[in-house]
């Protein structure tokens, strides 16, 4: 269980995150949504330890982690992917995954077959000896997820995993996540702008806006929350039908 309490972060004058609290339950898929620049990625950076918090607390299963360096948090089971891909360019796909797995070598790896299954499931088997640069974008994104999985995470945080994917691919990602949860139970924090995906995948949502917590709750509550609609979902006042569509999908 991951608990974020009153966490703040400012960069010089910019208040990127202001006293945000939410809890990600065991085995829960928790969506983190909000307009651009709301502070979602920053929140992920704070949890994973790439940024230090300006105030507040972060606990993993009751242990405070906000003082620990990023690598130690990763070893404790906080894994993530990146909005701008951060793969190891000169290492093959196999070794990209190995870097994360190495940490686990000393301890007895629970479920040694997990990775092999994930590699098959995420369609990486055929490109194990390739370097990431030569892969299509979608495959790189999948590699990021499998790599994070090699840490056997307790909390897996995905930053816009479906960006740049078409519907079919997004659907497949959804299936893969479902498979993943069955295969390796863990909490998942999911940042996405694809509302259909978010609404169908997540059990709980936290909405941020301008660094503040706007709402947190079940998808159904959230999608009818006036403030959220105003700040994020939009009210369908735009000239093309796009937003109406989106609404529709949201309700579905």
């Amino acid at each position, binding site marked *: 269980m991951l608990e974020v309490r009153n966490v703040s972060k400012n960069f010089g004058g910019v208040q990127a995150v202001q006293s945000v609290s939410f809890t990600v339950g065991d085995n829960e898929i928790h969506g983190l949504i909000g307009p651009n620049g709301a502070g979602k990625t920053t929140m992920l950076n704070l949890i994973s330890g790439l940024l230090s918090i300006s105030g507040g607390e972060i606990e993993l299963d009751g242990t405070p982690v906000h003082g620990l360096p990023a690598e130690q948090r990763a070893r404790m089971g906080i894994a993530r992917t990146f909005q701008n891909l951060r*793969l190891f360019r000169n290492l093959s796909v196999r070794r990209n995954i*190995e870097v994360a797995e190495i940490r686990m070598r000393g301890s007895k790896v629970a479920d040694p077959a997990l990775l092999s299954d994930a590699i098959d499931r995420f369609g990486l088997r055929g490109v194990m000896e390739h370097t990431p640069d030569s892969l299509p974008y979608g495959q790189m994104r999948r590699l990021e997820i499998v790599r994070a999985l090699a840490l056997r995470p307790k909390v897996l945080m995905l930053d816009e995993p479906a960006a740049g994917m078409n519907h079919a691919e997004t659907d497949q990602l959804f299936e893969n996540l479902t498979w993943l949860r069955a295969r390796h139970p863990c909490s998942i924090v999911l940042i996405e702008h694809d509302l259909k995906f978010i609404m169908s995948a997540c059990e709980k949502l936290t909405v941020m806006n301008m660094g503040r917590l706007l709402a947190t709750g079940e998808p159904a509550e959230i999608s009818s929350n006036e403030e959220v609609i105003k700040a994020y979902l939009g009210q369908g006042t735009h000239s093309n039908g796009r937003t109406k569509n989106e609404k529709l999908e949201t309700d579905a």
Partner: protein
Amino acid sequence: MNPSQRRGLLGSALLSLLILLIVGAYYLWGEAWQARILYATFVNLLVVVGLQVFMGNANLTSFSHAAFMGIAAYAAAICVTPVAMKAISLPDAPWGLNAFALSPWTSALIALGITGFLGLLTGLFIARLTGVGVTIVSIAILVIVHSIFLHRTDIFKGNQALFGIPKVLDLPQITALVILAIFGARWFRESRFGLQLRACADDEIGARAMGVNVYRTRLVAWVLGTMFFAVAGIAYAFFLGTISARPFYFNFVFLTVAMLILGGLRSVSGAVFGTLLISIGLETIRWLETGPEILGIQLPQMLGLSGLMLGVVIVGVMAFLPSGLMGNREIEDIIRPKRQETP
């Protein structure tokens, strides 16, 4: 042992075979004076392979190896030189440095220990830095150590000779050391530290998020690298019998770095090939420079060609083969390419 480590062993064995072939060729056909050239090449090889450990895996440029080599060479030399000799070569040495002499083994161990300790000490700083910072601090180390060699003439004799070091090592021993070094560097490259370090080199933040302790990984590589330089320094002193501060400075740094990048700094095989190629190339050019007669044609004297060629090699390689001859590949990747698993 995982598959890459198995391939690492294979690759090291192939490289060692190459080294043994060269040494064998010398014993069969070589002339006595070529043993010197071979020995010097192998000393350089030790250094370049050591450079690969840090520079290659971390993709950071460091220039301090000549300093560590010098430290080890002096430490070993001061320990091993007989007291009678030191009375002449180091008459003013403080702390009773000229009043004792140790066996070559003990001296080498002490030299390794001192260099390793200084490696650790500097590593604590270096490992915190990235990019040009590492280069600058490494240059600082080089300059500081050189200044001390020059300044404490009572211990190091500065630019004058510290002589009388017994000749302990010869071609067979250094061949063994080189082979050991190749296995060592290759083992490191394929070890968890090597892999993590290469990951850091590609993306430090990504690596941290994957649980890699960047600081510790760099530190391990740095200290390990200094041990290679230390061995090279000891081998240098134990063969030449005379050392001074002069060879442990920028010229040597340029030469060895050129060797590394010609071969390709990401690969141990590259380090080996680069060293061999540049050594052979320099010998050839040195011969050409003096204006020899080839097929009845008298060539003109072209002094300075070797220095020029060194520069041209560096620039040319960087421009046309930015990752060197070998790039990311090791020798076994060429001889036995990896089989692509079918999906």
